[in-house]
């Protein structure tokens, strides 16, 4: 950590997937004790950015480093990651899932257990730790993934849409946990496309659109800078450009697969809607 409290630096990062530029010229810093929101529409590049920050992806250009300049992929032990899919093994219990990751982080079972119990109380998960995750609801899976990400005591917690698909109560519990981590001095990067949530949880919001950072600052400043009255209006004014489609999955198909898809691509009917009753 530097004297100004910087923990993580993203410097002029570009990420290409074949010919598609997913992120371009992305720079920002994460300071200790901050909760930073990554806000953007689907396909904006939030997940790609989080994967770069967690060391799963390497930048095509630029750097993602800790404050001392060490590339983040070499120091992944400092991070706790909750991917959007949660990534739990259904044939392991919640605790076994947590323990598996903790062991790979090099943390002893006893320390991981103590930390797990501490946060499990906040998430009301103590009674579920010895259950197989197969029957877990989306909310329970998300909570288990959070416990797993916290068990080794990370310096920065990276959350990819942690409340997506959760019921109101579970979403509130997750947000409350983030608040608790913040109160304890923890640092969180929180990806979401829900503006009210970002406003509620985050100290600072980074709006990302089509792979480019459109704004970076506290919610009140974004509203002020765009001369709007709400964060939603500010967001809309900053993201006028039409959002692109997802791109990562479509890249690097083999020649035969491309040809096959071309041969068997279903035809879309060439009909135009000319008005009138659709029930006819």
């Amino acid at each position, binding site marked *: 950590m530097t004297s100004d409290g910087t923990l993580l630096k993203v410097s002029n990062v570009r990420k290409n*997937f074949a010919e598609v530029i997913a992120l371009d010229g992305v720079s920002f810093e994460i300071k200790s004790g901050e909760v930073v929101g990554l806000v953007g529409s689907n396909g904006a590049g939030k997940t790609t950015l989080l*994967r770069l920050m*967690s*060391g*799963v*992806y*390497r930048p095509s250009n630029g750097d993602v480093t800790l404050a001392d300049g060490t590339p983040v992929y070499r*120091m*992944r*032990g400092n*991070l706790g*990651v*909750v*991917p*959007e*899919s*949660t*990534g*739990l*093994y*259904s*044939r*392991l219990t919640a605790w*076994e899932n947590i323990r*598996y*990751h903790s*062991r*790979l*982080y*090099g943390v002893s079972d006893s320390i991981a257990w103590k930390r797990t119990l501490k946060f499990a109380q906040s998430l009301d998960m103590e009674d579920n730790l010895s259950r197989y995750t197969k029957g877990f609801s989306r909310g329970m899976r998300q909570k288990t*993934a959070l416990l*797993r990400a916290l068990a080794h005591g990370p310096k920065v917690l*990276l959350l990819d849409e942690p409340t997506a698909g959760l019921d109101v109560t579970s979403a509130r519990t997750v947000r409350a946990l983030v608040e608790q981590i913040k109160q304890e001095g923890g640092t969180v990067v929180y990806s979401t496309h829900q503006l009210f949530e970002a406003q509620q949880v985050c100290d600072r919001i980074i709006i990302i659109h089509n792979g480019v950072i459109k704004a970076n600052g506290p919610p009140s400043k974004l509203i002020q800078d765009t001369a709007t009255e709400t964060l939603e209006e500010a967001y809309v004014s900053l993201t006028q450009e039409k959002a692109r489609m997802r791109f*990562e*999955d479509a*890249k*690097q198909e083999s020649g035969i697969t491309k040809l096959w898809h071309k041969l068997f691509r279903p035809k879309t009917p060439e009909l135009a809607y000319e008005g009138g009753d659709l029930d006819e």
Partner: protein
Amino acid sequence: MNKSLHRITTIAKKEVVEFARDWRTIVAIIIIPILMFPVLFIVFPILLESEAAELDSKEVNVEVQYNSYPDFIVTQFNNTTTQLTLISTNFTGSLSDPRDDLDRVRDMEIDAVLRLNYSSDIWYYSIIHLSTSESSSEAKARIINALISFENNLTAQRIAAGGLEVNSTLDPLRWDGETSNADVATEGEQAGLILSLFIPLVLAIWTFSSAIQPSIDMTAGERERGTLEALLGLPCSRNELLVGKWLGVATITGVGVLLQIVGLLFAIGYLASSDFIGVPDLSGFAILLIILSIMLFAIMVVALELALAMRSHSVKEAGSILGPAIILIIFPALFTQVINLDGIESFWFGIPVINILLALRELLLDRVIIEHVVIWMITSIVYATLAAYYAARQFKREDIVTTLS
């Protein structure tokens, strides 16, 4: 413990535990391998025997059409489950032409018709039967047995009537003593020969096929379920991940192969229950080389399967690649069985898959030919390294984190 080794063993342990918790896995990895050969070699023959006994006691109806009373047939079928109906007739045309009997046999009014036409000291015969009917086939088999017995008697009578000694005329060339005493191969070597026909084949096919499911589950399966992304964010390298998963698949596969061989040996031992097969004579060096060859083969096969599965975006895609790929093992495995090991050219020991299978065959015969050993060992190390390198490249791809779902 070294940190890297700790991470590798943690990954491998978790893979084995998670895999073993699925009861279908226990069936596939433990129950099926251990039961397959005993069922094939013990239960199946028992079933065949009971079917044969049932057929023996089955009552069949045979119509005998003759122009000269066949006393020998009637005598043989007295007091048996074969019911004869005797009809005297005069034959015209070929005896094999079913004529009026066609519909009667097809409609199973009668199981078979034996036609006997005695002319100029020769019994001409034919059996009208329905080959797709078990009863008809059984009737035909009983008739043929009776006819063979009759023919032997008749031949002996005619030889004797000609003034010749029957035994020396019919059997002028004979082996003297116990045939097994004349084989200079030891019992252990003979056991090795029998095992060399089974074990390489079983090892090759089962290693490949039993590694398919865990390989897919631990790669494309993780990718599809979204667990891989969380794993890739952990402070373990992709190579550690690959080695850990390889160890997991190899353990599961190794248990399956071992149990299948135990089942095979048990079945052979049961069939033998006497001295059909003994313990092969193998030197310590040959055993060491056998273990080494299996390990090299497993490294290559499992690494290749992990790589191919990791390339796939989904379990379905991985299955459609790895399923047919078993042909790459079956064909060489079958081919290797017919290669003559005496004076075999050395180049065979450089061909992937074939080299290990031939090495196993030679080693089970306790033939340690240094030139062959050097060739299969070097080439196998090269192939295993290439497969591991290819797998490592697949594990380092960035797009393995993306899923179709």
